[in-house]
């Protein structure tokens, strides 16, 4: 802001995808191998739940590395009231990774990084409202009998750290995102999370509370692939097709479905959903792989 009373164009308004200096303001362990990292990013544009950012690290010798991370919290991304825009990333350490070991193992409050984004216009909630003249609308018609995308019930399905953008969606819903579709008018949502062990449940306590406070409108289910919780009637193991169809909203509800995880997880889940009658254009996917 200039002192002359005329707001200066922010740097990001001139180039929305330039690199922005950011500062780590909080780190919190979430699982044995994962962490959430809160960043202050002055000049950031408001982010939508489901979006990601590119993060750049610079070494002493000038070497730089860039990776993409989903945002797990966008509620403070608009800043305001004297606060700079703030976002939270959720990061799983990859054994052969370049950036994730630093974020999970070394990064400290006060460390500088750079951020580009937010990025992504499809894997977002509230869902993109199509421009009726655009090519996208013409080729991805809404199924007959389906509620408008913003009013549709939402099924979130995440594998491992693929939970991250889905947590952003649940938090945005609870915060009353985007007026009409948030708050009391928010559609029902279910989250199905697949994790290795009970200790690998991301944001477990918060999600449990969020469901408890939702008057039955939010439900959270976990399946465990390697170690089941004590007393569980389900043995540990990968999510199966039958379990998915039992836990997910049925195709007849015309839910919007967001699936995020490794490619093999997403490929299995999305394939089962389509086979069970879900409209492929209502199944939005985000896949990660590689280091």
């Amino acid at each position, binding site marked *: 802001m200039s002192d002359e009373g005329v707001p200066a164009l922010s740097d990001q308004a001139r180039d929305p995808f330039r690199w922005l200096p950011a500062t780590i303001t909080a780190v919190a362990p979430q699982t044995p191998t994962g962490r959430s990292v809160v960043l202050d990013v002055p000049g950031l544009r408001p982010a939508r739940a489901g979006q990601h950012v590119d993060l750049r690290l610079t070494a002493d010798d000038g070497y*730089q590395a860039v990776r993409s991370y989903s945002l797990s919290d966008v509620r403070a991304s608009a800043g305001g009231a004297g606060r700079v825009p703030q976002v939270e990333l959720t990061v799983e350490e990859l054994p052969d990774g370049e950036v994730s070991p630093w974020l999970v193992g070394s990064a400290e409050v006060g460390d500088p990084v750079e951020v580009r984004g937010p990025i992504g216009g499809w894997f977002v909630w509230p869902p993109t409202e199509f421009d009726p003249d655009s090519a996208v609308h013409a*080729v991805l018609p809404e199924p007959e009998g389906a509620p408008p995308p913003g009013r549709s019930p939402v099924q979130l399905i995440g594998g491992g750290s693929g939970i991250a953008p889905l947590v952003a969606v649940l938090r945005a819903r609870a915060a009353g995102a985007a007026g009409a579709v948030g708050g009391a008018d928010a559609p029902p949502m279910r989250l199905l999370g697949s994790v290795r062990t009970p200790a690998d449940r991301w944001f477990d306590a918060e999600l449990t509370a969020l469901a408890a406070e939702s008057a039955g409108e939010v439900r959270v289910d976990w399946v465990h692939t390697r170690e089941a919780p004590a007393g569980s009637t389900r043995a540990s193991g990968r999510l199966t097709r039958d379990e998915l169809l039992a836990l997910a909203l049925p195709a007849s509800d015309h839910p919007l479905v967001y699936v995020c995880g490794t490619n093999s997880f997403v490929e299995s889940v*999305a394939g089962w959903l389509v086979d069970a009658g879900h409209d*492929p254009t209502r199944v939005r996917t985000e896949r990660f792989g590689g280091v």
Partner: protein
Amino acid sequence: MAGFTGFGRRREVDPRLPPGQHLEKGFPVLSAGPTPNIKRWELQIGTEQGTRSLSWADFQALPHEQIETDIHCVTSWSKLGTHWAGVSLDTLFDGLDTTHEHAMTTSYGGYTTNLPLSELLGGKAWVVDTYEGEPLGAEHGGPARLFVPGLYFWKSAKWVQGIQTMATDRRGFWESMGYHPHGDPWREERYA
């Protein structure tokens, strides 16, 4: 920005990498939705002069070229020295004249991406059905995908169904979702 956070170099730097890219040994998948179930494959090539429809057998009968090249994904990974085989778009458009300068690619599943025709003709683009000597897998766009290695890889539309020239440029699916209308990796045309 000076680095003073203890972050150190962990990867080789290679002059074949465009700015902001890193080497990837695997082959990550980027798709907006489920892998489509293609029951009957047909490829449509269209200009204002007309449309050519090719069955799978028609397509297989066309001369296939071997391509060795690097690929660059907008999400910042690159693979070097990959091997592909497919039919040049010069062959697919042969005899279909056009004054148009733009094209829209349509894929099975409904997704679209727009490209300048100058990036599709002149030995720069193929429809490929083979990757590293094997039939192209469905999650990577098989049975056949567009292949435009000079641009970020989302322009290499998976599950290609049609390529239609157009008089004026329009944005496709990815481009209307925040990706750059052109996508040159050497200019870092990632987002717009």
